[in-house]
């Protein structure tokens, strides 16, 4: 892990495509390109607990995020449901950083209620012709490929007519337009498909079975969802900040009320960490932790949000200035010190997404009530 790169990550600076791809290449050359993949597909073959430890260490050391859409999402789907040709073509390219994947699920009319999606793919000889609009697409402007849920049968009941398609982002007819976000950064997009031709070979599994694959994917991703390593990192930042920020000349850390807030979030994080370990430990037996992942998603997002809020709160008036250039790695401008504090308020705003995306916390509580508690 290059020191310059980890400094960017720990400093909450903007990362370039090269930063992230570069890290994937480094991991790949060390044999760690697929920490969650079985050995037969070029992965490490690690147990869940080993993966968890690896993820935590990476986070704490300031490694860039892995492009999870490839490694943790479409990768496992291709392994489970793709054909031999798809596996041989796509999987190595994910491992070695050749292909950056993004996800085409949400639509303007289909957010939490994904099954009501309307982007359609019509079969025309050896291709599907895809038309429609996807939204809340993360980092698609950097991506080489997109995996999409598309409607291939509009007669069937909502879940039954959906297929899982892999689409090259360079195909003519695709338009990517940024959605300006609350923190002023470019992270998500709208994507239009206008008669986009996709070879039938890029269909995963069977036509109209896409919902099954998507559901598999939703429950496959679970432990990393708690983002414990990242939270540890933010807690450390917060403690350092509280020791440095002054309040009428006194350290903020010496403010009893603020220290209570620090302690509360630290305790919550301990409880989450241990619960992750318990889920992983149970997984040794059962393999599928199932709906407990909702517990991890809810608490993980709430703790991330609490931490980002406290980091902002620690700034006092410095929460106000918006200095987007200070998010660049090499910035040393004025006001002095902004390279440290400038990212924090934007991060607070940005982290509100964690309770909305990947199944809102309301949906997660529905899942707990219905699937675990049987209500």
């Amino acid at each position, binding site marked *: 892990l290059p020191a310059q790169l980890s400094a960017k990550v720990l400093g909450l600076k903007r990362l370039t495509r090269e930063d992230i791809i570069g890290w994937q290449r480094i991991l790949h050359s060390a044999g760690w390109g697929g920490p969650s993949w079985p050995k037969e597909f070029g992965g490490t073959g690690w147990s869940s607990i080993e993966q968890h430890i690896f993820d935590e260490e990476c986070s704490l050391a300031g490694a860039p995020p892995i492009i999870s859409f490839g490694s943790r999402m479409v990768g496992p789907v291709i392994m489970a449901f793709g054909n031999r040709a798809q596996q041989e073509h796509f999987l190595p390219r994910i491992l070695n950083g050749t292909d950056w994947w993004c996800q085409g699920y949400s639509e303007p009319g289909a*957010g939490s*209620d994904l099954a*009501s999606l309307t982007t359609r793919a019509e079969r025309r000889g050896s291709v599907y012709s895809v038309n429609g609009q996807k939204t809340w697409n993360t980092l698609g402007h950097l991506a080489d490929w997109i995996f999409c849920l598309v409607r291939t049968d509009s007669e069937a009941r909502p879940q039954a007519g959906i297929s899982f398609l892999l689409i090259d982002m360079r195909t003519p007819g695709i338009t990517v337009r940024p959605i300006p976000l609350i923190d002023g950064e470019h992270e998500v997009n709208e994507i239009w498909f206008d008669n986009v031709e996709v070879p039938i070979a890029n269909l995963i599994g069977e036509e109209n079975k896409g919902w099954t694959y998507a559901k598999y994917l939703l429950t496959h991703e679970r432990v990393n969802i708690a983002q414990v390593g990242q939270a540890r990192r933010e807690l450390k930042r917060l403690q350092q900040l509280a020791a440095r920020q002054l309040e*009428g000349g006194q350290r903020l850390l010496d*403010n009893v009320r603020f220290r209570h807030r620090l302690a509360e979030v630290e305790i919550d994080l301990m409880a989450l960490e241990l619960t992750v370990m318990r889920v992983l430990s149970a997984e040794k037996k059962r393999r599928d932790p199932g709906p407990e992942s909702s517990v991890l998603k809810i608490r993980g997002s709430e703790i991330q949000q609490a931490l980002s809020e406290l980091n902002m709160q620690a700034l006092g008036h410095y*929460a*106000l*200035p918006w200095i987007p250039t200070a998010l660049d790695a090499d910035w040393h401008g004025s006001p002095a010190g902004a390279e440290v504090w400038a990212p924090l*308020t934007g991060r607070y705003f940005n982290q509100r997404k964690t309770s*909305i995306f990947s199944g809102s916390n309301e949906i997660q509580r529905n899942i707990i009530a219905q699937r675990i508690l049987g209500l």
Partner: protein
Amino acid sequence: MDFELTDEQTLLRNSLQKLLSAEYSFERRQAMLQTPFGHSPAVWKLLAGQGVLGAGLPEAQGGFGGPVETMIVMEEIGRALVLEPYMSSVVVCGGLIADLGTEAERNELLPRIIAGDCCAALAHHEADARYTLSHVKTSVRRQPGGLVLNGTKTVVQDGAVADIVIVSAQDDEVGGLSLLLLDSTTPGFEWIRYRTQDGRSGADLICRDVQVTEQHVLGARGAGLAAIELAVDTAIAASCAEAVGAMDALNAATLEHLKTRRQFGQPIGRFQVLQHRMADMFLQATQARSMSFLATGRCREPDRVQRRRALSAAKAFIGKAARFVGQQAVQLHGGMGMSAQLSVSHYFKRLTLINATWGDVDHHVGIVGDLLLTAEQ
């Protein structure tokens, strides 16, 4: 305390609402966010034209009304997310000049402020003070031929668009704080101007051997802290009103979203969990409005303990309410709440920044708690 508005006050509210809905739609505001500091001289002149910039200032210089009029204006500013430096120019600096200025100073400056010809800002906060008003290291010292001002002020709100600035400094000669009323182009000033997260402006102000004279001192030398405290309490009341206006608008937008956005075959407002969430947002905003009345009614209260308790309680309560309403409005909007293209994220940002200004929730809860010690002894 009277909760009813007079006919004149209702007229002020209605005409301002009308002006802002005509001239300050969300789309217009989006365009103004593209300007360097959000401030639009045209809008500012429009407000001046309606007389709005005189609210709470003395009639002798063309102003009218008092804290209730300020509350009415600020509530509409909050509702329309107006980016103009009203708080700094009119409420804080206008108020300080009205309270402390000589007849000559008032006659010179207040009409210009009220006419929208001059924006003012208060440079008081410093890096290591956080919300402690008494923590000032900037100093003004005697030197041959006058006084010299040195120090650094941080996060001067609306500082990037200010024509004049009031700077607080430790006055070594007499003890205590003195306030200096200076032109923003005074030699020795270095301004570091920036945007704030909500699209307004701020600045750090570095003062290096700034040559001033006693003529520049606003009010009595050494008596600045009490004046700042009173001005900040006026600002807190105004902030509370702004937050109430913003929460009102945000709740209305969220309610509309709940009624129109459909998921799983029905409006999402049919889900009981979202209904209760919205009920809590309403409940918070309703009480916040009560507390805004309290802040307005008490912000000029001479009894310092009573004023302190009321203003800190109001700021703390409204800070909590604004946090809850803001976060939940984003949550209930789902992904759309994260988009800069809808107003909801802008309201959320503004409410967040109001919270971080003039003391946050913990700061003011702490003050109310500390008053229990005084009361008890």
